[in-house]
């Protein structure tokens, strides 16, 4: 990972990109209307400002626990999720704030969840790592590396079982492919031709361990063993990502079976809020090179400006909008109530009959004493 800065230009986390030269080809914008481009830019700027706001709130103790930021990887949230239908399903790991917003969770509901408030999308029970909203097809926010992969296969199974034509997009980090759950899930998906797109957000590092240190094969080889077709894309190019997912989702909807996408990207922040941005595992220079040359937002911005589709004033207005939505989300979260103590035991079980006791700590089943527990 210790390339000279000059080499970085053509690489994302050390992998050579095979994409068309966007700068020479103003047509990198082809197929997108001015409105669509503005919307994608606004989406990504919102994700960026939302997470910067979360970072700020974390620093002053408004947000606790683990908080994993997606900053630098926004191209994938917008590019992979925005082309999906409302009834398609998304399931992911714990670096998921922006993906949740991309799928339709409001910034208010997402921020309130980070704050642990009742108005959060998980009622304050989930926190940063467990955002859920079934009404928009966002199936969580899962905290064990690789744990969401079999669940994603199951969502795909359910779609196929019911004869639906939705797709499930299952995100994971690059480190997750070393879990047994990954191989087991891709194998079953291939056997039963499940409509699942497995997406590795390949930012090159599992926490502080470079992928090259924990694998002697390249990423694409991992799904080949199960017979799932692999694709590598530049996740920092939101337009390439968008086109790719629009096309791939249509193919999977039409019965192409499971797919594996190795999306190259880069994390601009530490693994979580408690980690330094750079350090023993990656150099400051490497991080800076990516921030200056591989930021999905500036890449799109520059292209739009060069093509005369975005003025400085428009950019400032979009950014001001993103900041205002993020500020509003934080204000909303801050003003929202914390969960009522009487709900402590709610939703442990969905069904409680009049027989037997489910809790033996003397609390769960006495109304007003942290109960009753009925969902």
């Amino acid at each position, binding site marked *: 990972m210790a390339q000279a800065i000059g080499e970085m230009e053509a690489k994302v986390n050390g992998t050579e990109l095979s994409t068309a030269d966007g700068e020479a080809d103003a047509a990198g914008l082809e197929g997108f209307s001015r409105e669509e481009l503005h919307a994608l830019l606004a989406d990504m700027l919102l994700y960026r400002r939302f997470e910067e706001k979360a970072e700020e709130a974390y620093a002053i103790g408004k947000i606790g626990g683990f908080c994993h930021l997606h900053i630098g990887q926004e191209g994938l949230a917008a590019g992979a999720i925005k082309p999906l239908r409302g009834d398609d399903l998304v399931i992911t790991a714990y670096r998921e704030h922006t993906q949740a917003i991309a799928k339709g969770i409001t910034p208010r509901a997402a921020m309130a969840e980070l704050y642990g408030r009742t108005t959060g999308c998980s009622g304050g*029970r989930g926190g940063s790592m467990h955002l859920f909203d*079934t009404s928009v097809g966002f199936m969580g926010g*899962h905290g064990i590396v690789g*744990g969401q992969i079999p*669940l994603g296969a199951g969502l795909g199974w359910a779609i196929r079982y019911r004869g639906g034509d939705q797709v499930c997009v299952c995100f994971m980090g690059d480190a997750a492919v070393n879990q047994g*759950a990954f191989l087991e899930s891709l194998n079953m998906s291939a056997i039963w031709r499940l409509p699942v797109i497995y997406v590795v957000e390949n930012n090159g590092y599992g926490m502080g361990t470079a992928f090259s240190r924990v694998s002697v094969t390249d990423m694409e080889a991992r799904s080949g063993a199960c017979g799932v077709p692999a694709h590598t894309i530049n996740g920092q190019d939101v337009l390439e990502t968008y086109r790719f997912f629009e096309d791939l989702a249509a193919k999977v909807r039409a019965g192409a079976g499971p797919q594996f996408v190795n999306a190259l990207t880069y994390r601009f922040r530490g693994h979580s809020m408690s980690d330094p941005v750079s350090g023993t595992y990656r150099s400051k220079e490497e991080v800076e090179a990516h921030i200056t040359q591989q930021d999905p937002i500036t890449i799109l911005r520059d292209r739009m400006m060069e093509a005369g589709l975005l003025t400085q004033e428009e950019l400032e207005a979009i950014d001001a909008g993103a900041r205002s939505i993020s500020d509003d989300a934080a204000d909303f979260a801050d003003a929202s109530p914390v969960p009522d103590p009487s709900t402590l035991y709610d939703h442990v079980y969905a069904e409680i009959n009049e027989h*037997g006791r489910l809790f*033996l700590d003397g609390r769960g089943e006495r109304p007003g004493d942290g109960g009753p527990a009925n*969902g």
Partner: protein
Amino acid sequence: MAEMTYRDALNAAMCQEMDRDDSVFLMGEEVAEYDGAYKVSRGMLERYGDQRVVDSPISELGFAGLCVGAAMTGLRPICEFMTFNFSILALDQVINSAAKMLYMSNGQIPVPIVFRGPTGAALQLSAQHSQACETYYVHAPGVKLVTPATPADAKGLLAAAIRDDDPVAVMEGELLYNVRGEVPDGEYIIPLGVADLKRSGDDVSIVTHGKMVHVALQAAGLLAREGIEAEVLDLRSIRPLDVDAILETVARTNRVVYLEEGWPFAGVGAQIVSMIQDEAFDDLDAPVVRVTQADIPMPYAKNLEQLAKPSAKSVVNACRQVLYLPAA
């Protein structure tokens, strides 16, 4: 009523529920073409087709997680483990996904799944194939657990588990599959959380669950020859737990033996003893005695295996102990 085996009663429960609800499907190793490793699903592939009776690869973590994912959308999977020993590979999906999903999602995502298969020891299968897995499951809030001991209970409890909106583990036993008994015809449901008095008696209570019900009944027969009348309370359901039924038997006999197939350390019996001392301390005439598997991995040699397992004789002696009588 018809006489049938425990195995066929489980099959009847699955067919009863699959007939009435298209969202129920069965997945596991060897459940379809092979008719089930223990033939519990005999004939079901032919009856329901390969979309609803599904042979999985040997990937316990994977197919358990797939079933949990399917349940997150409202399907009702029956996830068969060839034995619960193998489900230890799948515990991440049982505990981190199935048990916690409803809570983490603030009630948005119930997980109506059944995990079923045999638990505990059979005969000379040695350490890795002979362990009672109840504690692993009931330890986690969000999971329910039933342990049918008879064919009728097998039908009624499995059907109730399939209809339940929470993850329910149904723990069976290799040595129970051939047990025969009367089973009610037609739709038959036993609500979770209802214990069953398998034998009445005034002198001492043997509280137990699952396969050990038969050992308890055998011990009660031996005690009866000495003029000691033991009550055998089959919990049937560990979580939810029929606390009232336990407290009633404690109040009646004032002397309790807890019998289980699993290990003693942090075992199910430890929880029951704790509950009894919390809620019925004054009813006790003697400390509760637990009879469990020896606190060791199960040995292979026949004589050592017998020494390690709870036996009717060890239960008889435990009952004599709480009656302050010398060992038989």
